[in-house]
């Protein structure tokens, strides 16, 4: 088992290779301030993030899906991050979770530093023990992309064009 520092630095490399960005912060409030500063709009947040933030001025989490579509910034949280691949594991049982992580242009994913694991196999081992989590689980590795037109890599197709992983703590 590697140290937390080693895993964080490996994760940063993997994320960079997948064209994601890293943001290190101490707490959810700091993450919110960063996210809120990115555009003139209020970021869309998932129910779990809403609970973390405990702020009265946030939009209703039951916002219909359509209003989230194409929001500039969305914030969600990951259960795990995988150092090997730079991936984050999102558990998204409700459509609203997926709307935030898919329909916004710039997705910010918060993950606790101690939840960075070494390898993808650790992620699958975790998943195998959490049958409820596997109802709708996604390893996200970088921003959405396509190379379907003449193999020209284009970042940002149906999902976000920018992905930031905020490592908390």
């Amino acid at each position: 088992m590697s140290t937390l520092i080693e895993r964080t630095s490996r994760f940063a490399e993997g994320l960079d290779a997948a064209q994601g960005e890293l943001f290190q912060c101490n707490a959810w409030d700091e993450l919110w301030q960063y996210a809120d500063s990115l555009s003139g709009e209020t970021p869309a947040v998932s129910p779990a993030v809403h609970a973390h933030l405990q702020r009265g001025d946030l939009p209703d989490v039951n916002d219909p899906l359509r209003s989230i579509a194409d929001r500039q910034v969305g914030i969600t949280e990951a259960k795990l991050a995988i150092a090997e691949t730079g991936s984050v594991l999102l558990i998204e049982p409700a459509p609203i979770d997926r709307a935030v992580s898919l329909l916004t242009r710039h997705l910010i994913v918060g993950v606790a530093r101690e939840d960075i694991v070494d390898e993808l196999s650790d992620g699958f081992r975790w998943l195998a023990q959490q049958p409820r989590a596997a109802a709708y689980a996604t390893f996200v590795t970088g921003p959405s992309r396509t190379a379907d037109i003449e193999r020209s890599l284009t970042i940002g197709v149906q999902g976000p064009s920018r992905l930031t992983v905020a490592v908390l703590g």
Partner: protein
Amino acid sequence: MSASTAPFSVRYRRSVGDPDLKPRLLDFQRSWRESRDAQVRRLEQRTERSFDALRRDFAAVKDATLERMDDYIAEFRANAEAAGATVVELSTAAEAVSYIASICKSRGIDLVVKSKSMVSEEIELNHELEQQGITAIETDLGEWLLQLAEERPSHLVMPAIHQKRQYVAEILGAELGREFDPDDIPEMVASARDGLRRHYLSAGAGLTGANALVAETGSIMVVTNEGNMRLATSLPDVHFVTAGIEKLIPTWADAERQLQLLPRSATAQTLSTYTTCITGAQPGKEMHIILLDNGRRAMREQDVISDALRCIRCGACANVCPPYQVVGGHTFGHIYTGAIGLVNTTFHHGIEDAAGPQGLCVSCGACETVCPVAIPLPKQILEVRHQAHESGHAPLWERLALKLWARPRLFHYLMGIGALAAGLASLAGLVRNDHLRLPLPRKLRWRSVPTLPLRSGQTLVKSRATQDAIADSPASGQTVDLFAQCLADRLLPSAVDSAAKLIEAGGGLVNLPDGQHCCGLPAFDAGDWGTARQMARQTIETLEQSGNEIVTPAPSCVIAMQDHWPRLFRDEPDWLDRAEAVSNRVHDLASWLDSPGRLPDGCLSDGANGSWTAHRFCQASNRGDPGARIDLLVERLTGEPALPLEEPEVCCGFGGLTSLAAPEVGEGILERKLNCVAESGCDTLITNNPGCAIHLRAGANAGGASHETLHYADFLAARLPRNE
């Protein structure tokens, strides 16, 4: 009728007439190879295991699952249904279509948004639903472009790789009612996103495939890059999954093993952007998982074919396939493309749809080397080709030519006449550099026609003085049977003579068994196993006369004897034993010169000056034969290093009958090879298989290339000391 659904001959003509296809696919294959190899190297370093060990591990998982398919289906079904999904096992494409249509109708659904699913292509779902008034919209960008153009995928993971950006601009423009700058790909992608977005919100159902069905939890795993699959499964109320029964794996740990291999082999990514696992229906929604047979159980019953069910649809087999690079997937395949398409089409769509492209495969074996589940694709293609031949799908000229070839005396008689005719042509000034100057039709002009020398290889060996030994070797004093090979004997006789000299230089004595002709390879390659058996039996009888070790300058015959003869005689135990007794004694000349007829290092260092490089016979190289490294042998014996050559083990385009049956394919592959040779700047190109040497020389002659082409035996024998 669109470009991709026309009959094979029409698709073939269209693809060889497209000037942009070859260079684009060449660029793709080369960049894929580089990034994929880098990914595989990193994986090997991290896991401290070889790619071969990793792929064999996962292949064993797939094999064990297929072995107990019904148990795993039951386990998957129980778990998925416990999680609220409906699981149906269906036998045919028609059943799958009608199941989906009936659910849609009963729920009042008239719009289905689709994520990429090869099974839905296999059953031609979009077309069939349309007949029933249900619209299906592809949301993967590449698949959507195909749908707009009414085309089929030309690659398993890059479905629209054949489309040019100008064409994409045109079809997108027509659909979205605006003009696009073909060079602004990001703008086209952004508009496609907006064009597709509205459909998610109004669709009643979403449809996806599955990269894996995980039995222990009844889950599906889907790997994508765009994000459309997550939209298609989140917004509509009904989720259909179409998956072949072969996608089952037992556990999540196996899913992780599959993911080590799949994205690296498919798109050379460590991991695709989205790896999504879904278990059961989401609250208030429906999930219907369709487990399709459609020929898969029949595949499982055939020993040689069943391994093809391991396929994880990565497309790597197409990415290294030389004929695929020339004609693309609309021609090299049917709905499934690449090498795997040449195999499974027979079972999903029938021999009629599978037969057309069979003759395009050059049997180079590159596909098997990169297959992440180690499917013996070349072997399987030859099996399907045999079935196609048996069902009457071989051209008449090919059948007649093989019948002639199978009769040694008639063959030699005709060759004798041919040699005389060539002599007359030479007198008439129609020969230059050993090739005829004939007014060939345009499609054959890329390769000159070699003349037939008056004296065959066997005649040369019999009528010359013995070469003095230059060194002792473990084979000193040992008598060796020389198998000339039919092609070399007539078209490259010097290589046969040189082989004899090199054996003698190492102290061996050469015996030339009487009546030797052809091992049966050309007929076997063409799927005509009856004729192949006839030739093989004749060769076995010829080579049984002595118990000597057998040496040949033709590695293709060694492979035929060792790999193909056991298949030809699998139902004839007596002949199988006799074939094995002979093939156990056969050696490729190059490996013989290393052991036991070893020539010492540097013993042929006094030779003509001039630079050289080596094209290494693809089939032997991809099979991992040490003797295929003729570059190392020649370096060792001459002390002169080879010039670097790009893609030294990629096929030269000879491919046995392929270059005759599909001349444009032979030409395209040869062009790739000769460009690499020209870039090497060599004076002499050496190669190890006589077929390659003849083909490369005839191509260089037609193209006016400046290098000389030699069989390595000729290159080496020219440096032997003259007898005192």
